[in-house]
């Protein structure tokens, strides 16, 4: 099977198939591996790639895959599928205020194109700053937050199309 993910804005692809003996055959670019894999109770895999052994912890939320290997974290996302889009639109509360607070800064203008993850608005509450980031690439259709304004929980700040 072919799997494709986004990692740091780059597309990564691999082919992974299970062999009749239970091992896996993995191809990444011009590298080929025979992989022995044991699932971990706490989530993740003990992998043997030839003589090298790796413990990779993993967790999933929606279309995001979180991985931890040797104390280093990696975040992969599954590119848009119908299910992932549905999941995201259902959880599209990112552009509303998550708590009452004051708008410290508005970093975009109406009509701007924005990238996924780009910070749009900064709120301050309880002496903490909270960034409101774009859940997907798009264009700022409407900007409802104004600098200095106090907003209520759930109030819409930015509309992205």
């Amino acid at each position: 099977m072919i799997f494709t993910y986004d990692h740091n804005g780059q597309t990564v692809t691999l082919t992974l198939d299970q062999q009749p003996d239970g091992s896996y055959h993995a191809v990444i670019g011009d590298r080929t591996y025979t992989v022995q894999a044991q699932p971990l109770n706490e989530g993740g895999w003990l992998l043997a790639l030839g003589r090298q052994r790796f413990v990779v912890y993993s967790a999933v939320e929606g279309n995001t895959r979180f991985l931890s290997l040797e104390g280093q974290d990696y975040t992969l996302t599954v590119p848009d599928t119908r299910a992932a889009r549905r999941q995201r639109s259902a959880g599209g509360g990112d552009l509303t205020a998550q708590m009452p607070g004051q708008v410290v800064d508005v970093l975009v203008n109406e009509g701007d194109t924005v990238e996924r993850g780009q910070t749009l608005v900064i709120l301050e509450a309880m002496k903490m700053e909270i960034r409101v980031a774009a859940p997907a690439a798009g264009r700022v259709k409407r900007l409802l937050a104004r600098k200095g304004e106090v907003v209520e929980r759930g109030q819409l700040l930015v509309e992205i199309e």
Partner: protein
Amino acid sequence: MNLTKCLIANRGEIAVRIIRACRELGIRAVAVYSDVDANARHVQLADEAYPIGAASPAASYLNVAKLLDVARASGCDCVHPGYGFLSEAEHFAQAVLDAGLTWVGPGPDAIRLMGVKTEARALIQPAGVPLVPGFQADDADDNAFVDAAVRIGYPVMVKAAGGGGGKGIRVVYDPAKLPEALAGARHEAQHAFGDPRLFLEKYIETARHVEIQVLADGHGHTLHLFERECSAQRRHQKIVEESPSPLLTPELRQRMGAAAVEAARAVGYTNAGTVEFIATPGGDFYFLEMNTRLQVEHPVTEMVTGLDIVKLQFRIAAGEPLPFAQDDVRQRGHAIECRIYAEDPRNGFLPAIGRVLKFTPPEGPGIRVDSGIQSGDSISLHYDPMIAKVIVYDASREAAINRMHEALNRTVILGTTTNIPFLRALLAHPTFLAGEVDTRFVDTHLNDLLPDTPPLPDAALIAAALGDLHQNQRVGANRRFAPPDNDAVSPWSRADRFRTGG
């Protein structure tokens, strides 16, 4: 121990820490929780737990009336405030005493006296505690400030007498710019605090933040538990603390300890507290302020002294004398604490809110983890985004640093961005290794401390695909014969309720 049941007016890791002390002392622990904390770790561990309102701290953890209602209704005989929230609120300490309960902390008078900076200075100066050279006079005109600045020596810091929070502060290097700075600071102070009064302090550029832990009982015994070095700060927020301080000589340590004890005595202090100093590489030190509560970083002192500060707080509050004298307290080995935050160092250290899908703390010889969260908990916008404190102990500073690297490498936190890569870079920096980090180091060397995102290892990519391969097979199978959700072959811990095609 004449205390039998304690209300813990806090949440998170410090509430958990206090509950542990209560259990060992045979004191029943009563937790309180806001709406978003109903399943929090401190609630699970307590003997009893009561809701106190909405997530916003003003509605719950800062609500004196509700806290006292719980304390009375549940039959508590004492209250421990932890740190933050109401821990340094004189009115809460007083209200607890007025309700006939024991306050596990210093008296309201000591909290008030140390709370106003200019008052604290005036009180402890006669006790011989060194203060930052400064100038203060209510009726001073600009000429008086200019003369004073020459006496103190440039650079000087212009500060508002009426308040803090960084407002009204100007650092002046050039005497010609002082009048302009005074005018600007006066305007800002008037605007922010309704009080235009200013004072001058010498600005110490390469300062270290070194603090002394003190303990005082109600029988006239005040002693110190040596120092903590807390110079590794980001915008005045401590991130790494250690004991002993690499800066102190035995002689300086002895002098600072004695000064801290004098400062505590000057305000009639009881219970645990911390006297903060700024210290210079030249061996000078000056009183900064006293924190009239338990500190976040108290574990490093517990590791090097072998004492349990929280249990001692309860013993002091119960009226017992300290069970040891100054000469009995020893500082052995080296301890380091790292504060792990859900925050993004690459994005201005803004809190990274979200769910911690998996939290596996490190373990091993000499490793202690104080944490108030568990896998599946959300990092709430309402509270401090600290996930855990990782504390290590070893025989030497070098060994402790190596142990901390290993502990951080074994800490698994999935689902939210953390400052762990930043902490590792700081611990590996030559300036940290040399023990020469000052309070401005992190902010001025930030670019060195943000490691590049490493390329994706093939093993991580394979692990991601393995999870999805098995997930797809499960979904593709006839539902009736599909393995149950907890089948061992599916390693993804699905924290959400989303099921593809379900």
